[in-house]
């Protein structure tokens, strides 16, 4: 599933053992896609000597923090779901 800027998304809260770059504090959180970046090698296999292929799309996603402040984080496509 690909996303575009402005799309509402949810970060997957699935279990994952091993190296990955999705911060725990954002799992299950709802956010909005701000930017669509390029596709990059997947760190989840690169970390173990793999080639990281196929590449995964990276997005800059905005999350509400408090009092109108936000956290912006880079999240790989395979960790994002369409918000209900």
């Amino acid at each position: 599933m690909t996303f575009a800027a402005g799309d509402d998304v949810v970060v997957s809260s699935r279990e994952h053992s091993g190296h990955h770059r999705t911060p725990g504090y954002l799992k299950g959180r709802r956010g909005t896609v701000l930017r669509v970046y390029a596709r990059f090698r997947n760190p989840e296999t690169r970390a173990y000597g793999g080639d990281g292929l196929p590449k995964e799309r990276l997005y800059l996603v905005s999350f509400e923090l408090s009092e109108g402040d936000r956290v912006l984080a880079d999240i790989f496509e395979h960790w994002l779901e369409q918000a209900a």
Partner: protein
Amino acid sequence: MSHDHAHEPVTTAGEPPAAARVRALADLLVEKGVLEREDIRRRVDLLVSRTPADGARLVARAWMDPSFKERALSDARRAALELGLEPGESPQVVALENTDDVHHMVVCTLCSCYPKALLGPPPDWYKSLPYRSRAVSDPRGVLREFGLELDEDVEVRVVDSTADVRYIVIPRRPPGTEGLDEEELAVLVTRDSMVGVTEPAPPS
């Protein structure tokens, strides 16, 4: 010159655990033929040859030249190349602009990702657990400890550098700098202001 005193043997006693680990890793990589010592030395040289002065040049030019700023915000790598800087192919560098309404600060909650190609090695506090955890839970509190009190109507955007993009902040140009040239402006641009935890001070 006489040499009549005994030297301490080259020893690793008292070496911090992280240093011992790095040395052991380097020894292994060399032994297995993955890297040569020369590769490691060159890489370290490259890293420490970069300083915040590189990023400061980019910021000062952006302050002077609105069209350059637009280029920097859309493609920081190309803008850096225009100045003769070496932003590197990877990771990708992205510049974010602080304005009167929006204040960006950068963190890597997972480790210590940092725009090393434009700022050099990160400061210790950037790698510390307290900064990494509190930046995303209490950013205004962290900024206050850096001496920066933002108005309530300024939106704080904490940028968590979790993957293949490295962020550099273009801070607000301080007041009272209208008459300064680019080099004089660059002197005002501090490392911490390009991480977004402080703002450049006006000239004294």
